[in-house]
């Protein structure tokens, strides 16, 4: 994992486990180990946005879990809010959600649990 240090990786797993705690046959975010794939996402994030994200994750990595739970709850409330700061909250929400949902729901283990399978007929192209 080239882009993030240990504290930032810890932040991704903490946020991931709050957004995706695990239920039924679906494991929690950190149990999948999907954070290992994070460079597949971050390699293509524009440098200025990546810098902002890394700073944010450093901050989140230092926060106690209870504080993170409250923060993510507040970010979720920003979706339809017109209060000052709501635009920034929505951007942060989408950024964190984008990383977590991409890594988790892009993981083969989760596809198997969801019984998600797609394919293309290629026998005529061989």
């Amino acid at each position, binding site marked *: 994992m080239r882009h993030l240090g240990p504290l930032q990786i810890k932040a991704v797993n903490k946020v991931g486990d709050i957004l995706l705690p695990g239920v039924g046959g*679906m494991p929690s975010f950190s149990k999948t180990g999907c954070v290992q794939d994070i460079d597949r996402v971050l390699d293509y994030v524009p440098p200025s946005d990546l810098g902002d994200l890394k700073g944010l994750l450093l901050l989140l990595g230092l926060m106690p879990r209870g504080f993170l739970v409250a923060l993510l709850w507040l970010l979720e409330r920003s979706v339809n809010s017109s209060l000052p700061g*709501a635009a920034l909250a929505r951007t942060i929400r989408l950024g964190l959600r984008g990383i977590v949902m991409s890594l988790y729901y892009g993981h083969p283990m989760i596809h198997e649990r969801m019984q998600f399978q797609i394919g293309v007929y*290629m026998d005529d192209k061989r």
Partner: protein
Amino acid sequence: MKYDFIVIGSGVSGARIAYELNAGGAKVLLLEAGKEFGAKTFPRNELDYSSQLFWGGGIEMSTDGRLGFLRAKVVGGTSIVNQALLDRFDDIAWRDWRSVSGVSYFDAESMEPHYKAVSKGLDIRHFEEEYFNPNARIFTRAFDKLGYGWKPLDRAQGDCKLDKGTDCIVCLGGCPRDSKQSALVTVIREGRKCGLIVEPEWEVDRLEFSAGEVRVVGLQLGKQQELTAPQVVLAAGALGNSKILHRSGLGAKLPALGTRFSCHPQLMTYAYFSEVIDAHKGAFQTVKSADPKMREWGFKLENVFAQPIGTGMLLPGYGEQHQKRMSKFRHYASMEVALRDEATGRITVGKGGKLMIDKKLTDVDRAKGKRGLELVRELFTAAGAQEIIACEQAFGLHLMGGCPIGTDPGTSVTSPEFKLHGFNNVWLADSSVFPGAPGINPSFTIMALSHRAAQGMLKR
């Protein structure tokens, strides 16, 4: 090499114009900011294609964070990642465009020769009912039950082997069969056979003007580059063209630059059924609303679906409830409301040349959206859905305006002859010239406009 034209952007507009100019004997260089992939090299899964084929590493946001925009960054442009749906504009769209722009040829009769010309070489297919998957059948049965009109979509595709189990949703990340008729496998392929040069990973920053020539300045594979040509075609889309022209310092000279941005905001609703739907299987997008009432109400409905990451992003909330819903992915149907939004958005550049997309839904847009979502709820209820979930996050995939066409340089950026107002050597004919949202898939009309524009460029 000395080029007659440099075309910036390789989507359906840039690729078509480059092809026509090349075929007309001009020396053409086609630049694309994104990479080039092919049938054998497209990213094979949603995680990778979402990051690799789109600007911003996947998504760009409006300044208020309410709207997400998906803008392709790849040779072939949006035609690589869309469903190659082709619709002609109707009289309503043309009438509204004539009224806003003052452009007299915006009518079905004048544009028909251009639609016909770009159809040549395209395999346009109509989806037959035998290929409707359960999601489409839920859509059509609900429409029939409530008395609303629908019709199958027309798509530019070769033989996708749907009867052999192909799942079309794969080609949201590029078609591995070369059957989706993207710009890459049609006009770019044909153009290359006749000497068209395409340079990928060439990101244009700005244009500079001197002595009747245009200097194109940017980065190729991260290195500063400059190219010069007597004529330049801007086909980088609403966001790309607006950014390039702002960065070229033309904001003062073109007071309407960046204005009239619209995006057909898409509002998805998922519906849970006790039986397996497998909405992602087979031909996943096959039907749309075709009802004059909905046209009047300002939206259309389409059956559509998303892969797991997309669905995870769209379904509201998080935690156990969200995961429980996702675990039942195969039981969901979905429908989208595509709004004909008001063209009130504005594209500017901020600090460090960062793109700023100021686009808010107006009260009129929100009223249309509310009506559309209520109708979708009625339709899914009629279809027997056990749970109906309206998604809160709206996305725009049809990015239009920013360089609107018109007769008045005070309120438009592009002349009826497809030239930048005040310039004889900069041309535009892509979605950036749209003076308003048509409420109809824009792809076919972009191709037709580009064909018309290319005729003018060759005559210059």
